[in-house]
Structures are given as structure tokens and as C-alpha cells.
């Protein structure tokens, strides 16, 4: 195959060498247009340069033009490819188009319309799904993670995948910071997991205020616009994409082996007793293995420590190791028989399988453009029994009724199954290596150590709980577009969304320990219906060098949801029918409904004006209304404006044109709103419940109870963001280097906060508009084509960004009198919430851990209420006590600098290799697990559990970064342990092989690609506890996939 590739290339070169200048008679030209892999490109435009004569390639990439004057030049262009110019020649021409990486002519979705990247005045970044094909993104978040500068995508290790999204830092204290999602031009309020990544063609992230401002009150956190695939060619194209994934457990500390467990546990017991070795000689050996006592200390002396002389030393020892509750007989038996339980094997699904299959059919002709797909996604998780399944389907259909009128439907249906009952991995260390899973009769034991309440058999739920959690979602848009005279056009979208959700759970009456409750059911049903209507009027006109593109919007929306739950138990005569026969449950413990309603509306106008394609102007205004806001302020207006100047088109830049292909500077200013505060935040609500009295006759009288749950705030209004963005786009050396740089300042005003109130009011907080936050940051994005040889193409895209934020104002200035009696006006910090004027929203204000108290410091430690082995804090004011006056600023919880790096290689034309990594630096994360205290991290008691292989302090090993087992969490104060969680993650490594066309003719396929990739291949970090982004069991994924096009 490499042979033919070389030939093709030579052929093309020979074409251009044949150019001559003298006249010859016209000729008929035919040819084939294909990509570098020799796959035909259907729909490419072939134009005779300097004329209006053109044609489009057919299904097989073929074209023909009659009567072309010999020597004429043909321009062959295709979206996403570099335009080629070749000299027309008689006979069968072969033209190879190279993929374009210079994105200037890319079409970017900007909300209620599209624009060429070239004409943008705002900061927009585009992610192309085609680029990520070999990486089989499992979710929308996977596609965005590490591929969009300025966008932080959280990590989610569940089989469902996902992660939180945050554009350009945190700009709100209380309201949601999730960006607005727009799918095919309409606002999307469903679950991101309902969107099949295989259906996505591009994603555009609007980061600056001006671009986002078209979404007004919804846009303060940025906007992510998702465009789904459309039909591309005349002949129906059928694509199968199938892949299989294996999960592997990535970084984790590992579980103690049974032997390690025994010596660890003896340290736990000793630590629990306060290391008071003076109270009783030899007490240090209290829980030691009697076979391993030091010389000079006899077994009898050791037994005498607990008045147990004459007893079997092993039994005594195991009993002492059992701490407060003792080791259960079943544990002792299991130790003596050497039959430990292999928890890793029982609980970890180390070879979890995942599969993802999508089939799509698409095509287009003059009248119809269609794309339809069906996908099944079935993932196992890290925990045994953990599973996520979804069926997703999409149909995009557009019909040109007449030349002037288009109707279309985009419909998405998804059915999610989240009803798996997995083992709880957090239960792993809530057990011990010894014990027994089963009772003598073969049924599951309630607790493998017979210690009910501390250790529940992790398999119990898997056996005795039945769950059904399903969500069916229908999201669609029905639209009509019409062309009107004088450059006007009109579009109306009707976008309904239906969601049916249920969550049924039944715990069998046979579940050990709950038999007496006779089966327990919870049955919840939810129904959501919302709709939006967009009326869009657009005007597009050119006058000479003036070009105007205006858009007007009228929008209305309504949300309604209905939710009801019944909890019941005590089934008679039996619970064999479970939730399906909840009427058989005698005791109804809960019946509740939660119905909600919200409405909104919007008017928006936008004008894009450009002069000579050099000077660009965008002006937008949007007025939004939302029912959640106080009746005083239901509406607000959000304006924006932006300017762009294409420098490189100016005459004075001529000298640089040999290297600087394109340069544009842009500046934008705009305001955006945030309304995500809850649908009833402004109203005073009464929570209702019930209570019981007994009347004088001795009968029960149920009474209703009502109590206010929040303070009303009729003046609640929108949170506003005002941001200024300076940016530059550039392209050098014929597009081999291109990129953008942006600097922004964003001010958030009228912050929606849960304002802390003195709890003397009986309320802890009230939702109010207060304060101000400033965000500023810089983003650099660079795309380079490092090499573009016939057999080796290497491209890199790199971005780096940094965001800083600062609280400017909180509750307003109040008079404060200092020690000298001087009174000044000061805006006070909110220490209760951890918010400080002139500090990062995510700042850490806490006690400073400076090490671990040494044995030699016992007396000092004691004076603070600590013991050796506990974490040592800094007594900042040296008053001999730890109070809030000793709290200091330690850092921040969000990264200071982030980068993404992606390298792609095409080798021998058929091999694609890529690797992508991202790094986050400067953030601190809580590692309270290092205290080995009982309650931090939700862990139970270490004298009843086992443990991961983590370091811990002992008198013989006085380390400084981990405390002793069961250390003190504080002495009259609370503190947290903070550690750096900076990291670099090799997020994806992929390799793909495209089977040459020649090999496919037998199976009549148009394309076949095989790919293999590893997700989360490696992490580099000083962080020591599981994964730095996900402090728990985290998988790596290895995937093999096939993509077949017929």
C-alpha cells in the first residue's frame, strides 16, 4: 500500500510540472478526488479558477468537466481540507486533498448561527470530533477533557463517566457554575450522558462575554455548543463503530496482606491506648504476636498484662487484636485455619468490560438530509456489580420543501439504566482479612466478622437488594426555516423535552437482620416536561464592502416536573412481588410529592457587521425573564459588543506577509447573567410534615406541622458578569503554526450567595445578591504542523492557561473600631463561609500542619491536648492554645496553571498515532486520611477494620507526614491536612490503522479502521493517595475498536 501512495504523490507532482502557457483546444477533464489515505471524497467542489464553472464530486469522488481550456487551473476544495490548485489535464486526473489544520475557514457555531473562525470577534474554541475518533470518547466530557483551553473538566471514574465542567474559573459563590449546553442551536437541559459522543461532529466553547451574551442570563458560566452529525453524501452511508474496553485499576495504595494486617493492627491497638508505656511494664507488647515477643519478656508476663495466664496465647492475642470488640470466633477460626478472605478479588472488578456500539445511516440529496443512529453503551465499573447501560438514538432530518422553505426535526432519545447494585468499595476496609462470608447453612453472613453495625458483609446488598433506576429522555427540536425577500430569513424552533424517571428499590424480607421488617420498598416516579420556542429573524446583506448579519430572537420557555415517592414495608403475606405490589405492604412510611414549575422568556438582538472582511463588529443585547427571581426583578438586560481587526490584511503588513499569513486582534466587552439558584429561591417556604398527639380518650390524633424553612427575599435579582476580553488570532508559515492568545478580566456583581446569618435568627443563611468577584486570566493556544512528509505527518496542539480570582466585596462596609479606638469602615470577611476580601474564592484558611508531635515533645503536645503521633499545628500567636486566631492562608483548591498537550502522527498514511496529556498545577487537596483518625473520610474504627498500605507514625518510626493510627482529629478545634495535588496525566494514547481501499473492495466497504487506545495511561504527581483528581478507585481503560463504513 505504501507503494501506491508514493505513486499518487508522484503523479500529482508531475501534474504541476506539466504547466505550460500556450493555448490548446479545450478538453474534457475527469478525475477523482481523495484524501491522503486514498479514500474518495464525495461532495468536494471542483472549480475552474477564475470562472463560475464548477462541479461536485460524486459518491466515488469522481468529477467531470467538459470543455475546459487546456492549461486552466482547477481549484478543488472541501470542507476541512486544504484547497488544492492543479492544472487541468485531459484524461483521468487524481487529486489528493490534505486535511486542513489551519482553522481559519472553519465554521464555528456561535449561538443562533454560525461564523467562520476568521470572522469571529470573541474567544471561541472548537473541538472536532473527527480528531478524536480513535480515542472513542465515552462521554461529552471525555471529548472536552484536555482538548479545550480554559475549560476544566472534572474526573469521574464511574462507569457512566462524566465530570463537572467549568469555564474560566469559578465566578459564583453559590449559584451553579456549570456552563450552558446548547445542542444544535437549542438550549439543552438534559443529562450529558444522553448524548452519544459518536453523534457529535463539533463542539464549540464560547468563553468570552460577547460570544456568550446571546444566551444572556444563562451564559455567565460560558456556553458549550454541541453540533451533531448531518448527512454528507448522496449515497446512504452506513457506519458501524464498535469497541470493547477493559478496565484496569490504576494508582491505589493496595490493601494490607493478612500478615501485614496483623502487625498493623497491633500498632493500632497500642496507639489507641495512648502509648502509655510507663503505666505497666511491657504494655507495649500488649497486642504483639506472642511468638514474636522480645527476649526477656515471657509469654506468661505477656498473658499477665490482661490477667490471662494459663490461656491459649494465640486466642488471647487475637482477642487483644480485636480491640474494643475483640476478634470474633469466626475471625479466630479463619486465622487458625489460614483461610483469609481475598477482598480485592471479591470486590474489585479488575477486568471490567465495557462496550460501545453505534450504527448510523446518513445521506443527503436535494430534498433531504438525514442522519440517524442507534447506540448501545454498556459499562462495568471498578466495583463488582457496578454497571451503567444506555441506549441512545438520534435522528436528524431536514427537508427542503421548496427553495425557500426548510423543515427539520432533530430528535434524541436515550434510555439510561442505572439500577445496578454494586458492592460498596468503601466497605473494603471496613472489614478484616479474617472471618467468613457465609453462615453454616450457606447463606450470607450479615457481617463477615460477626460485628454487625461495624462490618456489613459487602455482598449483602448485591444478593438482597433489587433496584431499578431508569431514565427515558426525549429531546427534540422541530424547526422551520424560511427565506424571505431582501435578505431576510426566519426560523422557528419548538423544543420539547420529556423525561420519565423512576427509582425503585426493594430490600428483601430475607435480608439478614431486616427480616422483621418484612421487605422494604422505596418507589419514586418522576416526570418532567419542558418546552422552549425560539422565533428567529435573520437578515444577511452585503453592500459593496459592507456586510451585515443581523439576528433577532424571541424566546419563551416553561418547565414542569412532577415527582412522587412512596416508601413502604412489612409485606403480607410475603414480599415476593416487591415494588410491583407495594399495596401488599402494610406499613406506608412515606408518601410525598414534589412538583415544580418555572417559566422564562427572552428577547435578543445581534448585529455582526464587517467592512472589507477586515474590520469586524458584533453588538448584542438580550433581555431575560425568569420566574425564580423576586417579583421586583424578574427581568434583566445583558448587552455586549466586540471589535475585531484583521491586521494582516492591511497594506502596512505586506512586508510580513511571507511568514505571517493571518493576524487578527479582537476586543470584547459584555455582560452575562446567572440564574441557576433554584426555582423558588425568592419565596418563603413552609416545610410540612406531621406529628402525633394522643387525645384524652387515648386515641392517636395525627396533626400536620408547618415550619418556615427560609427567609424570603422579594428583591432577589440576577447575578451579573461583566467581562472584558483581549485576544489575538494568528496563523504563520502557511498555516503551519496557528493559534490564539486571550486575556480576560471578568467581574461578577450582585453575586447570588447563601448569605450567612447569625444562627440566632434561627436561620443559617438567606439567598441574597451581594458582593463581587473578579476573575482574570490568560490563555494561549498553539497548533503546529511540525512535519508533513508523505509518510510522516506530525501535528501538535498545545494550550496553557491560568486563572486568578479574587473576592472584591462581600456584605458591604461596616464601622469597626480598632484597639486604638479608631473607627473605620471595613467590609468584613465571612470566616464562617471561608470567604475573604481580596482572596481567591477557593482559598484555604486553616490551621497549618507543621509535622507530627515527636515522643520527645510529649509534654508540649499534651498542653495543647495532643499526644505524640498526632499532627502538630502551628501556634501562630504563640498563646499556647489553638484558636481560630491561629488559622492562616495555605493556598487554594483550584489549579494556578493548567496545560493541555496533544500530538498526532500519521505514519505511512494508514497509521495514526496520538497521545494527549494534561497537567494542573498549584492546587492543594485535603488529605485528612493522613490523620488515620476514626471519622475523617467516613472510615470506621481501625480496631475493627483493615487498611490500605499507607504509612503511619509509630514511636519507632517517627515520620512527619502521617499521624499515628487513630490520632486525634483536633483538640477543641477542627483542622484539615492539605497536600499538593499537582499532576500531569497521560490522558490518552491511541493508535489506529486504516485498511487501504484496495483491500476493502472485496467486502464492498468504503472504509475500515481498527484502533486501540489507552485512557488514563499514567499519572505523575506528588500526591500519594489514589488518584490526584479522584481520591478513590480509578481505572485505566484499554480499548480495541473497529469503525466500518459501508
Amino acid at each position, binding site marked *: 500500500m505504501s507503494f501506491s501512495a508514493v505513486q499518487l504523490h508522484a503523479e500529482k507532482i508531475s501534474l504541476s510540472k506539466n504547466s505550460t502557457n500556450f493555448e490548446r483546444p479545450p478538453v474534457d477533464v475527469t478525475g477523482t478526488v481523495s484524501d491522503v489515505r486514498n479514500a474518495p471524497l464525495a461532495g468536494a467542489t471542483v472549480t475552474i479558477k477564475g470562472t463560475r464553472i464548477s462541479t461536485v464530486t460524486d459518491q466515488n469522488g469522481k468529477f467531470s468537466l467538459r470543455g475546459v481550456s487546456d492549461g486552466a487551473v482547477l481549484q478543488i476544495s472541501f470542507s476541512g481540507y486544504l484547497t488544492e490548485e492543479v492544472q487541468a489535464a485531459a484524461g483521468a486526473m487524481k487529486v489528493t486533498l490534505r486535511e486542513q489544520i489551519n482553522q481559519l475557514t472553519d465554521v464555528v457555531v456561535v449561538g443562533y448561527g454560525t461564523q467562520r473562525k476568521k470572522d469571529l470577534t470573541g474567544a471561541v474554541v472548537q473541538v472536532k470530533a473527527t480528531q478524536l475518533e480513535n480515542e472513542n470518547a465515552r462521554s461529552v466530557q471525555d471529548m472536552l477533557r484536555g482538548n479545550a483551553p480554559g475549560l476544566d473538566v472534572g474526573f469521574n471514574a464511574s462507569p457512566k463517566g462524566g465530570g463537572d465542567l467549568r469555564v474560566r474559573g469559578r465566578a459564583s459563590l453559590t449559584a451553579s457554575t456549570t456552563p450552558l449546553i446548547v445542542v444544535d442551536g437549542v438550549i439543552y437541559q438534559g443529562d450529558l450522558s444522553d448524548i452519544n459522543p459518536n453523534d457529535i461532529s463539533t463542539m464549540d466553547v464560547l468563553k468570552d462575554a460577547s460570544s456568550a451574551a446571546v444566551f444572556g442570563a444563562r451564559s455567565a458560566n460560558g456556553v458549550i455548543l454541541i453540533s451533531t452529525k448531518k448527512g454528507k453524501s448522496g449515497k446512504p452511508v452506513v457506519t458501524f463503530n464498535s469497541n470493547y474496553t477493559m478496565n484496569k485499576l490504576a494508582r491505589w495504595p493496595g490493601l494490607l496482606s493478612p500478615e501485614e494486617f496483623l502487625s498493623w493492627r497491633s500498632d493500632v491497638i497500642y496507639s489507641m491506648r495512648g502509648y502509655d508505656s510507663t503505666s505497666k511494664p511491657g504494655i507495649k507488647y500488649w497486642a504483639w504476636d506472642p511468638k514474636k515477643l522480645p527476649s526477656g519478656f515471657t509469654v506468661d508476663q505477656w498473658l499477665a498484662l490482661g490477667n490471662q495466664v494459663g490461656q491459649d496465647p494465640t486466642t488471647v492475642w487475637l482477642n487483644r487484636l480485636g480491640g474494643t470488640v475483640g476478634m470474633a470466633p469466626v475471625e479466630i477460626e479463619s486465622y487458625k485455619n489460614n483461610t483469609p478472605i481475598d477482598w480485592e478479588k471479591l470486590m474489585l472488578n479488575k477486568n471490567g468490560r465495557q462496550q460501545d456500539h453505534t450504527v448510523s445511516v446518513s445521506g443527503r440529496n436535494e430534498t433531504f438530509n438525514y442522519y440517524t443512529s442507534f447506540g448501545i453503551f454498556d459499562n462495568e465499573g471498578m466495583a463488582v456489580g457496578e454497571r451503567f447501560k444506555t441506549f441512545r438514538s438520534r435522528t436528524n432530518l431536514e427537508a427542503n420543501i421548496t427553495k425557500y422553505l426548510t423543515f427539520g426535526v432533530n430528535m434524541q432519545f436515550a434510555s439510561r439504566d442505572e439500577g445496578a447494585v454494586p458492592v460498596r468499595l468503601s466497605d473494603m476496609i471496613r472489614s478484616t482479612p479474617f472471618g467468613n462470608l457465609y453462615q453454616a447453612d450457606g447463606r450470607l453472613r450479615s457481617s463477615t466478622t460477626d460485628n454487625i453495625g461495624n462490618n456489613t458483609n459487602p455482598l449483602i446488598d448485591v444478593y438482597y437488594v433489587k433496584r431499578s433506576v431508569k431514565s427515558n429522555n426525549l429531546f427534540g427540536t422541530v424547526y422551520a426555516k424560511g427565506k424571505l425577500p431582501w435578505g431576510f430569513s426566519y426560523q422557528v424552533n419548538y423544543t420539547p423535552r420529556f423525561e420519565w424517571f423512576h427509582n425503585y428499590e426493594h430490600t428483601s424480607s430475607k435480608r439478614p437482620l431486616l427480616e422483621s421488617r418484612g421487605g422494604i420498598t422505596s418507589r419514586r416516579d418522576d416526570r418532567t416536561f419542558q418546552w422552549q420556542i425560539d422565533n428567529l429573524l435573520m437578515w444577511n446583506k452585503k453592500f459593496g464592502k459592507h456586510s451585515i448579519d443581523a439576528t433577532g430572537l424571541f424566546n419563551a420557555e416553561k418547565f414542569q416536573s412532577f415527582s412522587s415517592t412512596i416508601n413502604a414495608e412489612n409485606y403480607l403475606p410475603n414480599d415476593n412481588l416487591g415494588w410491583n405490589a407495594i399495596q401488599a405492604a402494610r406499613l406506608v412510611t412515606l408518601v410525598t410529592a414534589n412538583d415544580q414549575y418555572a417559566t422564562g422568556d427572552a428577547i435578543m438582538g445581534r448585529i455582526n457587521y464587517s467592512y472589507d472582511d477586515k474590520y469586524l463588529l458584533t453588538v448584542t443585547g438580550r433581555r431575560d425573564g425568569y420566574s425564580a427571581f423576586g417579583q421586583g426583578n424578574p427581568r434583566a438586560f445583558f448587552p455586549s459588543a466586540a471589535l475585531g481587526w484583521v491586521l494582516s490584511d492591511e497594506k502596512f503588513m505586506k512586508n510580513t506577509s511571507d511568514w505571517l499569513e493571518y493576524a487578527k486582534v479582537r476586543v470584547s466587552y459584555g455582560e452575562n447573567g446567572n440564574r441557576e439558584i433554584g426555582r423558588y429561591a425568592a419565596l418563603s*417556604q413552609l416545610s410540612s410534615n406531621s406529628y402525633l398527639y394522643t387525645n384524652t380518650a387515648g386515641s392517636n390524633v395525627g396533626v400536620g406541622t408547618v415550619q418556615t424553612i427560609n427567609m424570603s427575599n422579594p428583591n432577589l435579582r440576577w447575578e451579573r458578569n461583566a467581562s472584558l476580553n483581549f485576544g489575538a488570532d494568528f496563523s504563520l508559515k502557511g498555516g503551519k503554526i496557528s493559534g490564539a492568545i486571550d486575556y480576560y478580566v471578568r467581574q461578577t456583581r450582585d453575586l447570588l450567595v447563601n448569605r450567612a446569618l447569625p444562627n440566632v435568627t434561627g436561620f443559617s443563611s438567606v439567598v441574597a445578591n451581594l458582593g463581587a468577584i473578579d476573575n482574570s486570566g490568560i490563555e494561549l493556544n498553539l497548533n503546529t504542523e511540525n512535519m508533513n512528509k508523505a509518510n510522516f505527518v506530525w501535528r501538535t496542539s498545545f494550550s496553557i492557561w491560568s486563572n486568578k480570582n479574587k473576592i472584591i466585596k462581600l456584605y458591604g462596609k461596616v464601622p469597626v473600631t480598632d484597639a486604638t479606638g479608631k473607627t473605620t469602615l471595613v467590609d468584613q470577611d465571612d470566616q464562617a463561609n471561608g470567604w475573604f476580601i481580596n482572596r481567591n474564592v477557593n482559598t484555604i484558611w486553616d490551621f497549618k500542619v507543621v509535622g507530627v508531635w515527636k515522643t520527645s515533645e510529649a509534654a508540649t503536645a499534651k498542653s495543647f491536648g495532643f499526644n505524640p503521633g498526632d499532627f502538630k499545628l502551628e501556634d501562630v500567636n504563640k498563646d499556647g492554645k489553638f484558636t481560630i486566631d491561629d488559622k492562616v492562608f495555605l493556598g487554594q483548591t483550584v489549579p494556578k496553571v493548567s496545560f493541555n498537550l496533544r500530538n498526532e502522527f500519521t505514519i505511512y498514511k494508514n497509521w495514526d498515532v496520538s497521545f494527549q496529556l494534561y497537567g494542573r498545577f498549584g492546587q492543594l487537596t485535603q488529605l485528612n486520611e493522613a490523620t488515620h483518625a476514626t471519622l475523617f473520610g467516613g472510615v470506621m474504627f481501625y480496631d475493627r477494620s483493615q487498611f490500605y498500605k499507607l504509612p503511619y507514625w509509630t514511636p519507632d518510626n517517627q515520620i512527619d507526614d502521617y499521624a499515628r493510627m487513630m490520632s486525634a482529629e483536633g483538640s477543641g478545634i477542627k483542622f484539615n491536612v492539605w497536600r499538593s495535588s499537582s499532576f500531569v496525566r497521560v490522558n490518552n494514547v491511541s493508535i489506529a490503522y486504516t485498511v487501504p481501499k484496495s483491500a476493502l473492495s472485496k467486502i464492498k466497504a468504503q472504509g475500515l479502521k481498527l484502533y486501540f487506545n489507552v485512557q488514563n495511561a499514567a499519572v505523575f504527581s506528588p500526591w500519594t493517595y489514589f488518584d490526584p483528581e479522584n481520591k478513590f478507585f480509578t481505572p485505566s481503560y484499554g480499548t480495541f475498536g473497529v469503525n466500518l463504513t459501508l
Partner: protein
Amino acid sequence: MKHSTHTLMKYFALVAFVLLVTQSCQKDWLQPKPLSFFSPENTLIDEPGFNAALAAIARNVRDEWYGDGAPIISETIFSEVAVEGTTDKFGPAVNLNVLITPDANLNNVDFNRIGWYWERWYLIVRLANTVTTRIADIKTIPEATKNAILGKAYFYRAYAYYRLTHEFGDVPCTLKELTDAKLDFNSVKREVILQKMKTDLEFAFANVPWVANKGDVNRGAVGHLLTKINLALGLFDDAIASSTAVINNGTFKLMTSRFGADASNTKRNVIWDLHRPVNKFLSSNTEVLFSVIDRFGDPSATASGVNTMRQALPFSSNAAILTPDGKQGMTNTVVEIDHMKNYGRGIGRCRSTPYHTKYIWDDVKDLRHDTLSGNWMEMENLTYNNQAIKGSSPFYGQRLQLRKADGSLLVSNGDTIRNWYAWPHYKMYVEDQIRYPWQGGNSDWYAFRLAETYLLRAEAYWWKNDVAGATADVNTVRRRAGCDAYGAGVVDIGTILDERARELYYEEPRKTELTRVAYIFAKTGKSFNGKTYTANNFSTANFFYDRIMAKNDFYAKGVKNIRGDQYTISPYHVLWPVPRPAILANSLGVINQNIGYSGAEKNKPALDKIPD
């Protein structure tokens, strides 16, 4: 074709026009529409609405006695009767000098619930204020009904302020529903608040009926609370008057004969009957002034029940308890000797002191300390139940022993604090419908009982130096428990407090009552045990501290538990620390911190008047 395009276009424009018009014409389009919740404006307008608001307060009062680490334990361990007994973690309130600070975690079931009290009382104040403020404008409710509702709301508000002022001293006071964020609270003098509560309760006493549903407020409960506040104000005659009104009215009587569920069980007795969950709400039970309600199966039931068996019983299932032949004697699994059901799996969190289990029992006939009928349980009344040693140890099924014949301890880890003490089974035993091992399930609980009214009056008499009157009232309570009456010259405040401990353990807020007594000593300057007290140095020398150090061996002797943590307490613990977040969030005023805690240096003189 051309024609049809035009038609389509027209139709299209029409649709667009209709849409635009319909949308813009709805004036109330953005009106919020609450569907599944009530709002004050549509609910607190009639009698059922206000009754529901009062029932909500009753529900909030209830939680003091319920769940894991129930708040009542914090009240109980700041006294002579109990200490925190858990030893498996750091943080439980053992070393009070180190752990009880304004910056500590003051609301944690494993540590203490001081912060819970602070928040809960102010929640109740807020809910009561909502009723008192809103009912004033309602014209449609008859005056008598209105006054009864108002009286009940006053009762709850006074209930909260009585507790606040004896847990925290001078505290902020609001008497109106707040409609704006208020950040300028200042502390008000305790007596000023109590004086206002007295006035309110006198109104309530005149307007709340004597007879009401159990769980609701009646005049007896009002009079009982009024008595406490009269005492707190040093108004002993008023206290005698208000308590006598309750005692003499006739609606309420001590239960002196057998009744209820176990009445025919001759092994049991009236003390047993009085504390049976199903007997607490019988109409024949005339001793109840005010109780909180929790019934299994009712939607209003608490999730975890009273949990008394888990909280207040020793950790008798601890593996460290050995048989005299050295085997593990006890187990917490399902075995034939089912201690886990009969007594539950105690964890020794609320560990009775020798004062409560031994010293105060001065009459062997006292039914409240009677092991024969099963009212009272000593460890030695339990038997070794570890079925694994059945057959191999002769001690299986035999009674527990603390020591071997040679005197050596049979608790291998030495933890007799947590594992080994006696308890009042008649009170703590509550059938558990929810789980196994039993922890104490759903049951009503007494808040005010007539027995306490007698003891309050006894106190008032004693303060007035009427020892005979005091003796008579104490003896009324004692005789019911089968004791002989005290002769002349025995009864003093110490004896009365002992009687309270015998009768009201795990019912009364012991710390609140001790602090109240300490305040009266400081106010009256009355001499006791050769000591007098003043208000000036209340936080450094007070009756509260002296009494605890005289009676509670753990604090007095500086006992250390097996973790090496020492039991300590200080005079300033007579008042709890105000949780720091409350002070921090009050940026425009000063909420005083109690002397002895960090932050008290910023205090301002407390107000003499409740601000409007």
C-alpha cells in the same frame, strides 16, 4: 409551485405572529408558582394553620432525647450523674478543659451536642415568633382560641429561653419574626429575658386549658415551666404558688398503683409501669404534664428511636469481658442467651457515675434501684452468653464476675469505665422495632412529669428555709418509689438534687438545672456546706463546679480512661461556650462569649432591655 410556496409562507408568518402575540400577552407569565409546598401567606391564617405551626415546634422539642449521641447526653455528662464513656476514638467530651472550646466541633454525635442546643433553641424561638407575630393580625380566630394559641407559643419560646439562659447565660433575644437579614445582635442579661418569659407564661397560664392532647401544651406544663423560671429569678413564693396550682388542680396525679400493659405481671411494679413506652400516653397515666411523641409506624416517627439502650448501657458485649477461666465471655451476635435483644448492644457513651449507681441509693426498698423486679441492672445480673464457649467453659450461662477469686480483673483491656457499670433498666429498656441488636426503638419520652413539680416545689421551700415543706414534697416522690420517708433535718438542696437524680435520670436536663441552682446560690448568697457564692465571679467559683467535684468521682479524681485521656472540668463550664460561627456571622453587634473561653475579651456589657 410558486403559488403553494406563497401559501406556505403566509401560513408560516401567521404561526409566527400568533406565537409572538400569545407570549407577550400573558402578564403573569413570570409569576412563580409554588406547587408542592405551603407558604406562610396561605397557611398561617387560620386555626389549623397555627396549630400546625405549634405542632412543628413540638416536633423540634422532641429531638433532644432521640438518636445516636442524643443531645440529652451532653446535659447529663456536665453534672454529677454521668460522664462520656467511649474510648475508641479521640474527641468524645472526656477532657472538657481541652475539648470544650468555641472553635471545637460542638455538634457531633460522637463528641458533644452543645452547638445543637444553641441552634435548636433559636430555631424554636424563630418558629414561636412566627406564630406570635402573625396571629396578632388575624381577625377571624375567636379571641379565646387566639389567646390559647398565643399562650402555647409563649410556652415554647420560654422553654427555649429557659434552656438557653442556663446553658449559655446572657444571650441575644428576639421576640418578633425577622423579615430581614439581621446582623446586629447583642447579648441580653439573663434575668431580663427570664423576667419577660415569666410575664408571657403568666399570660399562658391564664389562657391555655388544663386538658389538652398528650404531646400538646396544657396549663400544667405551663405552670411547671413557670415554676422553674420563678425559681431561676429567685421568686420562691411565686414558684410555690405556680407549682401548687399544678399539683392541686387535680388534673395531674402521681401514678402510685399498677397500670397499663404489664399491670398483671406481678413481678413488676408501678415504677416499671410508669416507664413502659405503651403506658406513657395512656389516658389513665395522670403524671404526664408534657411529653414528646414517637411511635413506630407513624409517619412522624423518628428514624432511630430513643436509642437509650445503645447510649446509656455499658458495653457489656465487649470481647474484653472474660470468664473466670479466661475465655471471651460475651458476644454481640445472635445466640441462645439473647442479651442483644433483652439489653441491646450498649456502647457506654452516657456512663453513669458511682454517684448515680451507688452513692445516692439510701433505701434498699427503693423500686428505682430494685434488681429483684428487674428495674435495676447490675453487671452481675448478666450471664456469660458467648455460645462459642458453651461446653468448654463451666461459666457459660453463669453470672458475670468483675474479678477472679485472686482479685485480678476479668476485663482484659482494663476498660471498666466503658464496659462495667449498672443502669436503670426500667427506664432505658425500649423495644426496638427497627434493628438488631436492639438500641432502643420508638417511644414517647417524658419532658415534664408531676414528680418533678413536687421536687421543684421542695426546692422553693428549701430556699425559703421551709425544710419541713421541702421534706414533705421529697417524701411524696420517695414514697411512690417504695421508700421510707425522710425524717426532719435530712432534706437540703443536696438531698433534693439526689432525689432528682434518682427520679429524673435521662429525663431532666441535668446541667441546666445545676446551673440554675448555681445562679440562685450566687443571687441569694445562701450558705451551703459552709460556702457562699456571688454573681461577680460566677465563672470562677460556683455551686455547679463544687457540686460536681464533690460527687462525680471521674472529674474529682482526674480519672484517666484506657486511652490515657483524663476527665477534667472547670468552674467556667457552668456556662457552655457560644459556638464561634454564631459570633463571627454577627458582624454588626457583639454576642458575648462566656468567661473562660477564647474570645470573651471582646465582650460588651449585656443589655438591660430586650431590643425591639
